[in-house]
């Protein structure tokens, strides 16, 4: 019998990934979770306080109002993406996968382009377009007789979050579109040909053949949207600043975390409180992803193609 030697080669090949992941992802995450249980004094020293940071966030009136406001706004932000970005992405992808569509490649590139632009540019450009002083928005609406309906959307508490969410949808629509498009292309021609031969209409092919085959991709898109939205920060910050005005109408968990951790103006940042907020964000995402995996992912049928 050959003596079983320790599989050093496995360790060797795993090491780079494990090391880099642990060093830059796992360790900071664990340290953040750990830091949430501390508080720092004037001199900058940390003391263990147990759950008191979390108690403050959830039960102190000022903190909990801000936290739940951010949470609710974030949920709305996510819902808008789910209702608009992903269905429109699916629609566009289905259109592009049709045969014989002219200029398909050009459209595809144009629609995907904003995704490649920096958020700062997107924020700046849209702020200019929607600016009540110099923006083209009002003029363009005037051409179709709607100049009166123009409003400073980014500044009104009732419309600010929706406007920012729509800008984000506009920017990122290319991603679900591309993912779904790739999934649609992977559907074997024979199945579609067979359906057509049997006399199925284009819509029926879509509902009964294509859609069931791309459910796993749609699930993936949902979870990616969920994680990205609950970690969102940059667009709001570049358009509305960390104070996420007006009256915190655009405040989401990311901007709430930023203000807590780094501070803002004379609000002095608290790394320990910030870590507690980050932990809450982590939990929200963990629970969301957990629900998805246990209740949705398992029920999805995968077809061998």
């Amino acid at each position, binding site marked *: 019998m050959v003596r079983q030697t320790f599989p050093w080669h496995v360790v060797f090949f795993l090491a780079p990934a494990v090391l880099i992941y642990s060093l*830059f992802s796992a*360790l*900071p995450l664990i*340290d953040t979770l750990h*830091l949430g249980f501390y508080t720092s004094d*004037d*001199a*900058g020293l940390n003391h263990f306080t147990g759950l008191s940071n979390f108690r403050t966030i959830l039960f102190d009136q*000022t903190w909990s109002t801000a936290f739940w406001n951010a949470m609710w706004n974030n949920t709305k932000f996510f819902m808008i993406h789910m209702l608009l970005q992903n269905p429109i992405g699916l629609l566009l992808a289905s259109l592009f996968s049709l045969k014989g569509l002219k200029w398909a490649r050009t459209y595809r590139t144009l629609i995907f382009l904003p995704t490649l632009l920096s958020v700062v540019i997107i924020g700046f450009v849209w*702020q200019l377009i*929607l*600016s*009540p*002083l*110099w923006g083209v928005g009002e003029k363009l609406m005037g051409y179709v007789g709607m100049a009166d309906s123009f*409003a*400073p*959307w*980014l*500044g*009104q*508490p009732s419309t600010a979050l929706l406007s920012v969410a729509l800008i984000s949808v506009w920017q990122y629509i290319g991603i679900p579109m591309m993912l779904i498009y790739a999934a649609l292309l992977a559907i074997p021609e024979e199945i579609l040909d067979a359906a057509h031969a049997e006399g199925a209409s284009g819509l029926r092919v879509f509902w009964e053949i294509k859609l069931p085959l791309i459910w796993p991709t749609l699930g993936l898109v949902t979870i990616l949207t969920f994680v990205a939205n609950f970690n969102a920060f940059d667009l709001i910050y570049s358009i*509305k*600043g*960390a*104070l996420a*005005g*007006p*009256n*915190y109408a655009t405040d989401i968990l990311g901007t709430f975390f*930023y*203000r807590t951790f*780094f*501070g*803002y*103006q*004379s*609000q*002095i*940042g608290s*790394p320990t409180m910030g870590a507690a907020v980050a932990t809450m964000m982590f939990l929200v995402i963990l629970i969301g992803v957990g629900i998805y995996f246990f209740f949705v992912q398992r029920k999805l049928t995968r077809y061998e193609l």
Partner: protein
Amino acid sequence: MQSVRILRNAVLAALVAAGGAQAGTLTIESWRVDDKALWETVLIPAFQKKNPGIEIKFSPTAPTEYDSSLTARMAGGTAGDLVACRPFDVSLSMYKKGNLEKLDGKPGMENFPATAKVAWQTDDGKDTFCMPMASVIHGFLYNKKVFRELSLQPPKTEEEFFKVLDSVKKGGKYAPLALGTADQWESNQIVFTSIGPNYWKGEEGRKALIAGKAKFTDPQFVAAWDYEAKLGTYLGKGASSQTYGDSQNQFALGRAAIYPTGSWDISYFNQTPDLELGAFPPPVKKAGDKCYISDHMDIGMGINKKSKNKEDAYKFLAWLGSQEFADIYTNKVTGFFSLSNHLITVKDPVAKQMIEWRASCASTIRLNAQVLNRGEPSMENELWNVNAQVLNGNLSAKDAAARIQNGFAKWYKPQQ
């Protein structure tokens, strides 16, 4: 544990773009992005003429990000050698964390009066941690051409002020006020704390709040918000998404008659030679009332305790305290007035006009700059939010007062 902390700081430092602290070069941290050219072409060469061989890099961060990113750089050990100091509590907190050198008795410090140093001292006045550099004065700038065209006079009382605003509004050609609330800070720092001191009697009202003898819900503060709400009706229809930059442009392009601001904006508007600037202090209630102006100690300079080049940093600081610097700074960085004892002639006519208000009006600093910002919720952020809403007509003066008072009383013993 130590290694984890080092790692965390390293990650933090990598996150926040770092200005390296090298020996031989001095890096200055500041939020005065607009002054970058002046530092590089005028101030630094003037210093180097006297102190050859010291390289200086002026590396500013946007004002709204300055405090938070500086705190992160301090924690990560990558902050610059010289640090522009915000007045009062923000810098005090940095000093308490051991980020700043104690400056008492250092060369240059003897040129500043005690009143100027107050903004950068511990509460007991024993430790001074930043050298006072400059103050700014708040008020209203107006476009002289527009005023001539509509035959208007700069107003002295509130009644006159509203008459002026009404006639500009009726004319329809110009916006009465170049002011927006998208960035929020203007609503507090250049509207509320500028027009308010006439109501709460400047220092008297401010100190009464600190002593717990007055509340924000008292009539003198509510009335200031009422007045602000009335001003809000003269804002443009898109004011809620108009940024500070938009307002600056609107006024510079001659599309607005009046621009509520502070003296720091003079140098910006001087870049537009066609614009004929005038200034008037916040109008008083009745003719003959004593006037109060917000004359705010705005900027100081401290030394990073972890600087690798303290010797040169102190040389630079000594120069900051000199007559030469006071003169260059006051006259080149127009609208920032030196806080030193040196006698300086202000050359810019508008800046000169503003500094002369000191003789006729009583000076005060921004209402919440001292002590009031210390607690949680941060009063500065609350005031930004509340004042922007009052200007937009979304919040009544009474509710604004109640909200600020509640937040204040929550942590401040004398108010409980």
